[in-house]
């Protein structure tokens, strides 16, 4: 019996899922690693630990689930988070930790570049918003602030490229991941000279870009032996977590938007054209020759919800896992609109649609009857209002009438129903939680010839649960959203002032 393995190098853990050739899950396993925050604006991961964890999880799933049942591994498909930067020397050894997507050290470099004509030009060519998250800004930061590392760097790669290098001794990067660097020209599918010049690097310091179905490399001998695989196992380079999670909704040929809420969140759409505007609001990632995935990201998704539970909910004595079901019951009982309480969720500044790192959170409308549970529901609704404001800016360019939701937060019944009510649109809830791995499997099975196209591979997606919006709740949410939007508009100057005080302290 044949199978394929999908390996997703995520922000908190590496998840490995084995699928049979019909796209049914056979086994899954994960291994976590920490993110280091030595300062508030720093987010780093240890590349050796990420690699060892990936190897460990891969080995244990092969040893425990595949060897005994004599399953043959036809292919391994890779995916990862976007935007990480790891400088390595000429021997491929890491020069320090990997700087991951949430790292904010390059904020002022990005802000300065964004104001210039060059910044706009780079955005139009690369489709990646000019922001601290983008490897373009991070490499420019290393050049200015870490001359020793910058001078020794033979290549700037991502954690995914590092893991692939350990498996194959070769440097390749898929178009999806490359298109998230701010260094890659979406039209020519080549490294963009303007970006390279700004970052101070040359093409030979980056990996060779290839399409996501690329399989022109092999596991090196020692790895084959260690993993009990042979040269016939194909390695497929794959794509990113965002692209695969979006693919796994099956929304490719429909005019639907995809709402993902994990610790952050995003509203995404498929399209044959890029989605750029003069404000530099939207990201654009290459999926394949036909499709781009475009949209806007928020920094304040599930993380803001967790913050509210940890800091507002009073009943937490011992175990959060036990309290959550009870909390969700209580939240469901609170009326839509949290008795007129609003929350602006900008705990970590905000990316789309306002792109304002000074933005700060607030409760608005508190009165004497509000209790902690209203505040938590208001946080949840506030996060969804923020998703709606991203969607609104997309709707100016691209029409959609239905939604798909995925991600650990959004795919719960309470969240999904509120999403449906706020948007006033029907919602399909993904029933498979490891969405990036499912998208990987769709690609893997297509490359292996089981399906003719990614569209056809959609048949492996478990059928989603459908929800419909309530008209009366939607009307109420519309009124609240108007206040939400106008507060955000009005407070720009106050955000700046309060952020200045907070930075000084």
């Amino acid at each position, binding site marked *: 019996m044949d199978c394929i393995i999908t390996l997703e190098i995520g922000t908190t853990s590496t998840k490995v899922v084995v699928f049979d050739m019909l796209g049914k899950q056979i086994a899954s396993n*994960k291994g976590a690693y920490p993110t280091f925050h030595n300062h508030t604006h720093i987010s780093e991961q240890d590349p*050796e630990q990420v690699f060892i964890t990936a190897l460990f*999880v891969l080995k244990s799933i092969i040893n425990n689930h595949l060897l005994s049942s004599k399953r043959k591994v036809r292919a391994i498909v890779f995916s990862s988070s976007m935007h990480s930067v790891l400088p390595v020397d000429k021997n491929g050894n890491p020069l320090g930790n990997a700087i991951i997507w949430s790292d904010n050290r390059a904020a002022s470099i990005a802000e300065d570049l964004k104001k210039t004509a060059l910044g706009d030009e780079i955005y139009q060519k690369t489709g990646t918003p000019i922001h601290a998250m983008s490897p373009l800004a991070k490499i420019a930061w290393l050049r200015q602030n870490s001359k020793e590392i910058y001078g020794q760097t033979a290549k700037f790669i991502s954690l995914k490229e590092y893991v692939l290098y350990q498996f194959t001794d070769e440097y390749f990067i898929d178009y999806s991941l490359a298109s998230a660097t701010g260094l890659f020209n979406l039209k020519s599918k080549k490294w963009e000279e303007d970006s390279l010049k700004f970052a101070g690097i040359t093409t030979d310091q980056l990996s060779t870009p290839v399409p996501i179905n690329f399989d022109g490399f092999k596991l090196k001998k020692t790895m084959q032996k260690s993993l009990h695989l042979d040269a016939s196992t194909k390695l497929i380079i794959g794509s990113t977590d965002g692209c695969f999670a979006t693919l796994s909704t099956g929304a490719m040929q429909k005019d639907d938007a995809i709402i993902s809420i994990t610790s952050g969140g995003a509203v995404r759409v498929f399209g044959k054209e890029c989605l750029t505007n003069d404000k530099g609001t939207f990201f654009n990632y290459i999926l394949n020759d036909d499709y781009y995935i475009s949209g806007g990201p928020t920094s304040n998704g599930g993380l803001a919800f*967790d913050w509210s539970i940890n800091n507002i909910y009073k009943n937490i004595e011992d175990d959060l896992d036990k309290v959550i079901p009870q909390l969700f019951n209580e939240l469901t009982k609170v009326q839509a609109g949290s008795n007129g309480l609003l929350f602006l969720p900008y705990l970590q500044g905000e990316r789309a649609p306002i792109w304002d790192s000074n933005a700060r959170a607030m409760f608005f409308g508190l009165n004497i009857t509000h209790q902690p549970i209203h505040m938590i529901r208001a946080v949840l609704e506030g996060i969804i209002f923020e998703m709606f404001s991203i969607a609104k800016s997309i709707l100016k360019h691209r029409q959609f009438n239905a939604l798909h939701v995925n991600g650990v937060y959004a795919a719960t019944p309470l969240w999904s129903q509120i999403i449906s009510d706020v948007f006033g649109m029907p919602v399909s809830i993904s029933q498979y939680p490891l969405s990036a791995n499912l998208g990987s499997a769709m690609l893997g099975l297509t490359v292996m010839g089981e399906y003719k196209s990614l569209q056809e591979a959609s048949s492996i997606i478990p059928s989603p649960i459908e929800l419909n919006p309530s008209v009366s709740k939607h009307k109420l949410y519309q009124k609240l959203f108007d206040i939400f939007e106008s507060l955000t508009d009005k407070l720009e100057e106050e955000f700046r002032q309060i952020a200045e005080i907070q930075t000084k302290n």
Partner: protein
Amino acid sequence: MLKEPTNTDNQISSGNHPTDPFFIRTLNFNAASERPVYVVNDHEITMFHLISGNIEWIIDNQYFTILPNDLLVVYPKSTISWVESSLDICTIYEIRINVESLLAPHIHKPLWSGIHHAEFNVILNLFKHYNPAIIPECKFPAEIVSKIMKEIANEELGFKTRTYALVDELIISTARCIGKSSARNTDFKEQFLILDKMLRNNLSHQWTVAEMAGIVGFGITSFTDKVKNHSGFSPLNYLISLRITEAIKLIKNTDISMTHIALRTGFYSSQHFSSTFKKVTGLSPKDFRKKD
């Protein structure tokens, strides 16, 4: 050998008494008291249990407000002072525990504490990691201290043994509370980060699952489940992944011998290191170094 607690002592002297297992007294501050700077002795863990009053503390240049019933645990070499203000009056139990006599027990001198040596190492690590630790709203230190005082005042049969046992209880209860109070209001993700940091900083230590569980204030069973759920690893496998990760860095970036790398990363022999390393990476440490 034991110093009797005094109820009136309001002067802080940094008296040196390296052979005493512990030292307890009551401090009374009032507006007129002197406020000397106080450095915790090298060989001592010091606990302060605030009985009444309110006074602002400066520990290693950081300000802390400590309220009645709070227990403060301070690691050696920390500097403590108090903010001058005319309003504060307070009473504090000061408990100093001689760490040296526990860490390097002499064969000739009977070991006074019943705490297992390895466990005590973990407890000390805990105190060091959380230094200064403030355990809010606890009653047990004052209760134990008053029992100790009674034992010493009455000198009944077996009072020394009982006193030492009470000091052990104080140490262990405090250590358990530190892990638990760090667990309050945070999810396991945060606690796992604390543990991860502790493991990284002490990779050469021969960790047991019981010790790891103690760091975050759990029993072994629920700890193992939680780690597995959160990380996908069993606690010991997570530790191995950290050890191999560190070993790879040392192999790539230094010329340190394999034996030393093995010891530094917590493997008990170079054979154990070599076989574990090969099991995980597919290469022996020597071949791995050659390749680079």
